[in-house]
C-alpha cells in the first residue's frame, strides 16, 4: 500500500494566551515541524511494509516541501541529517496541487471561469484532475524511460487538463 501524505497550507488556529508565562521557556519554543515530517514519513514507511510515501503538497506547501527535501538531506545541525539518499529512500511520488512555480497555465482558466464560485464544478474537476495526475505519476515512475522527466510529464499533463477544463467551460472559444 502506498502511503498518502498531505501537506497543508490552510490551518485553523488555536489562540492560547498565557499572560504569566515565561517568555524564554514557553513563548519561543517552536514546533520542530520539519523533524516531525521526517519522523512521520519514516514511521509510516516502516509500518507499511517499506512502501514509500506519496506526498501531496498544496499551494505554499509545495514550496515548503521543496524546503523540506533540501533540509532533510543537509547535515545536522542545520539540516535533518538524513543523508544524500533520504528522499529517494522514502518518497515514491510528489503530486503538487496549485503550487506557485512562477505562474501556471491553469490560472487563465481559473480567471475566466470563476470556478471557485461553483463548488460542484470545481469539485468535479479537482477530483478528476487529482486522480488522473496521481495515476499518471505513479505509472510513469515505474517506467525507466520517463523516470527522469517527471516534471516534464507533469506540465504536459497540466496543459492537457487546462485545455480540457477550458473546453468544458467555454466550448465556443477553445
Amino acid at each position: 500500500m502506498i502511503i498518502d501524505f498531505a501537506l497543508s497550507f490552510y490551518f485553523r488556529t488555536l489562540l492560547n494566551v498565557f499572560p504569566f508565562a515565561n517568555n524564554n521557556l514557553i513563548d519561543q519554543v517552536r514546533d520542530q515541524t520539519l523533524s516531525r515530517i521526517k519522523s512521520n514519513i519514516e514511521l509510516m514507511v516502516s509500518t507499511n511494509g517499506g512502501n514509500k510515501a506519496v506526498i501531496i503538497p498544496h499551494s505554499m506547501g509545495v514550496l515548503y516541501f521543496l524546503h523540506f527535501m533540501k533540509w532533510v538531506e543537509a547535515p545536522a545541525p542545520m539540516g535533518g541529517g538524513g543523508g544524500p539518499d533520504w528522499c529517494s529512500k522514502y518518497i515514491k511520488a510528489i503530486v503538487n496541487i496549485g503550487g506557485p512555480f512562477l505562474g501556471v497555465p491553469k490560472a487563465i482558466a481559473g480567471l475566466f471561469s470563476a470556478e471557485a464560485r461553483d463548488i460542484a464544478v470545481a469539485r468535479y474537476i479537482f477530483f478528476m484532475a487529482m486522480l488522473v495526475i496521481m495515476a499518471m505519476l505513479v505509472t510513469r515512475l515505474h517506467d525507466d524511460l520517463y523516470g527522469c522527466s517527471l516534471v516534464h510529464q507533469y506540465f504536459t499533463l497540466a496543459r492537457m487538463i487546462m485545455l480540457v477544463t477550458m473546453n468544458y467551460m467555454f466550448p465556443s472559444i477553445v
Partner: protein
Amino acid sequence: MSLDNETGMDPPGIRVRPVSGLVAADYFAAGYFVWAVLIANLARIGYEEKTMYMAAYDWRISFQNTEVSLF
C-alpha cells in the same frame, strides 16, 4: 495572528499554533472543503488514519523557523 517585529516569532505572552491531524485542513469553513473530499475518496479505496498524515505547518513564519526549538 501577528508576529513579533523584532524576532519574527511569537509576541510576548501569545502562542498561535497549527492544529494537527486530518481535521487541520479538511474544511476551511463550514461547507468550504479543502481536503475533505480527497480524504473521503482515499478512505473509500482503503486509506485510513494510519496511512494518511496531514502535515500542518505555521505559514506565518519563515520555513526554517518552523524547525527551531529555542529561538
